[in-house]
């Protein structure tokens, strides 16, 4: 028997069929529905061409804002979670007291349900009775006590800050694993050559951590594009028209009001974004692999 013989393609048939039936076909049907006027108000279904997409991209609607919100949420949280996560990972791989305790505390927010975090923070951030503003007023920093979730200029930043607080521990944990897998030989050799801390970080830690950072970036981007529960629990898309509305909260609301066609069209737009972003990310990641 030839041990090197690759398995024939039809061995994958079961998995492919399952995947097609449960994921690919429903996705394609969803895209199909986005060209119709499907709604809960009528049992009839008509083909309307690109009408729903015209609505989404029309200036009269705020879908553009929703898409922009989603993309900026993804960008900001990805950059900050990676940045802060990296800083924390470096700190928590040093020889410090009660290391595991610190690591545990850092990871804790990630264990809690997002909805519960949302409810807790709604209370913490209450403008008059929330502990944040009460604390700020007690130390005479009244000018910093803002209406965090109910003023349009602060709401989106606040939501992102809470999400970064929740997610950064997880990213730091992944990066800690990455840093610990770097052989200490490199650092010892660099020390012999007289390298300082910054040089060691720039020339050893960062390059060898790039594949891990690529993984955390992918995780963050996917999470950011799909974010729903945090926003739903904190602001439900408000205050006002669509200050913190993102694609999934909008899709949920459209389905809730029975406007399925617009909902599926939004999902399709989201799908296109994910494909484009995913394509470029995979290219960047495979480029790294080739170099290694």
């Amino acid at each position: 028997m030839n041990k090197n013989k690759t398995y024939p393609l039809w061995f994958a048939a079961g998995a492919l069929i399952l995947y097609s039936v449960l994921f690919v076909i429903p996705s394609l049907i969803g895209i199909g529905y986005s060209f119709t006027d499907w709604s809960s108000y009528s049992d009839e279904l008509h083909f309307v061409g690109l009408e729903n997409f015209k609505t989404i991209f029309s200036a009269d609607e705020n879908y553009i804002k929703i898409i922009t919100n989603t993309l900026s949420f993804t960008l900001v949280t990805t950059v900050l979670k990676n940045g802060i996560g990296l800083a924390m990972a470096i700190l928590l791989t040093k020889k410090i007291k009660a290391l595991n305790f610190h690591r545990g505390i850092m990871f804790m927010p990630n264990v809690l349900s997002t909805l519960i975090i949302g409810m807790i923070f709604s209370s913490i951030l209450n403008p008059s009775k929330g502990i944040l503003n009460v604390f700020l007023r007690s130390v005479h920093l009244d000018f910093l006590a803002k209406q965090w979730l109910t003023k349009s200029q602060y709401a989106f930043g606040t939501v992102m800050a809470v999400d970064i607080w929740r997610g950064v521990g997880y990213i730091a944990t992944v990066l800690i694993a990455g840093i610990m897998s770097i052989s200490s030989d490199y650092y010892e050799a660099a020390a012999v050559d007289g390298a300082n801390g910054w040089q060691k970080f720039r020339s050893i830690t960062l390059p060898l951590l790039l594949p891990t950072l690529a993984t955390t970036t992918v995780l963050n981007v996917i999470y950011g594009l799909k974010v729903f529960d945090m926003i739903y629990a904190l602001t439900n898309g408000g205050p006002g028209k669509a200050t913190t509305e993102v694609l999934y909260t909008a899709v949920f609301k459209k389905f809730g009001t029975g406007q399925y066609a617009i909902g599926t069209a939004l999902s399709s737009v989201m799908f296109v974004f994910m494909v484009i972003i995913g394509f470029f990310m995979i290219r960047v990641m495979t480029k790294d692999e080739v170099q290694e």
Partner: protein
Amino acid sequence: MKKRLLAAILSATMVIGLTACGSSQAAAPAAPATPAATEEKAEEPAAEEKAEEPAAGDVTISFMASQDWVQDAELELAEKFTEQTGIKVDYQIIPSDQYTNLLMTKINTGECTDIFGGQSGQFDIVTQFNVEKNAVDLSGESWAGNVDPLAAAELTAGGKLYGQPIQDVSAVWAIAYNKTIFADLGLSVPKDYASFMDACDKIAATGVTPVYEAVSDGWHHVLWFPETCVAVEAKAPGTAAKYNNNEGTFAENETMKLILSQMNEMIAKGYWGEDYMSNEYANAAQEVADGNYAMVVANEGFGEEVEAIGAGLSKDDIGYFVIPLADNQTMNVNPAGPSRFIYSGSEHQAEAKQYLEFLASEESLTYLTENVPKFNKLPFSNAPAMYEGSVKEFYDTFAANQGTVYQTAVKYVNPQWMEIGADLSAMFLGEMTEDEVLANIDKLRAEQAAAASDPAWN
């Protein structure tokens, strides 16, 4: 070759299995004779036997409702019902800002609870809930004839009754005010917008915030607009009927613009305080009882809620007057309100009907009226009436001049309540103008009418 054949057969079996699963879910009544379906059928007699067992001890009916709709007294009645029948009632109470979305998603995906709460309204129960498809006809129930005719009309579609009222619909959303504060400042009940603003001004000068408003709930601040639209009808009778025939728009209605601009003015002058965007209506009684706020849009049980706080104010220290925006002096009556519907896809329709019958019994209605402060007269002929004190005074003053609120009188307003709420909060934040809010209501009405194939719009 044999292996290849075996694999092909296995793959084919799997495909058939999958499609069989799919079709038996999509069209359950006409299950095809696939092996999977035969197995299901073989199990059916056992299931039937279970259902026929006399003890209904295992049955739990689920009931989904919005936060403020289900009272403690109703939960106590549910326990009594369980004691009597063995049928358990599982209440799923949903935060009010998320309720409509969640309910519609559950109905539209076919996963609704056995009983669901929904706002009544002769147009909305058809266009929004599609009761003829999603709810069970309750016309034949023993209590159906007891439902107040005005309330029943809002629950009827195609001549059939589909729901049962939950709350006292005689209650009017009026401005509940602290009589003590008014008396101390020598203020009389405002009869128009100018005197209302004058009262707010004097109250604000004492350090008390004039009006408690709760925008974060998403629904409460909306009341100011469609409830006060009785003024629109008072100024131009027949306007609601015109809107239902798609004649004229909200955007060109001067009274509506005036109402919205006066809401903005109240906020600009600080009469709603600093925290109106994050306040919750659930805290209204506490805040008024503590003397932090002087007024709130509430219904007539509010006095009892304030008294129950135990901060020194009695229920008769709270008085009521109609919302005087646009100089309104018409009492804003709404025969529609939260109601119970039995989901047509429920497996426990008989038990759910039994529960509704229990709730509509004279004993239950009396229990609810006596134990829920805000209930004065539930809309059933066999329910007791308990108007007294400040509430009686209010009804005596305004009962002669009544109008139906616009979320009930005009089609396609109530289903967009939360959207109006979002637009109004955008208006408060300066993101939208009054004209844009009204134009958006017109736009959403047109979209819903088109989707519902309303002949007046097509």
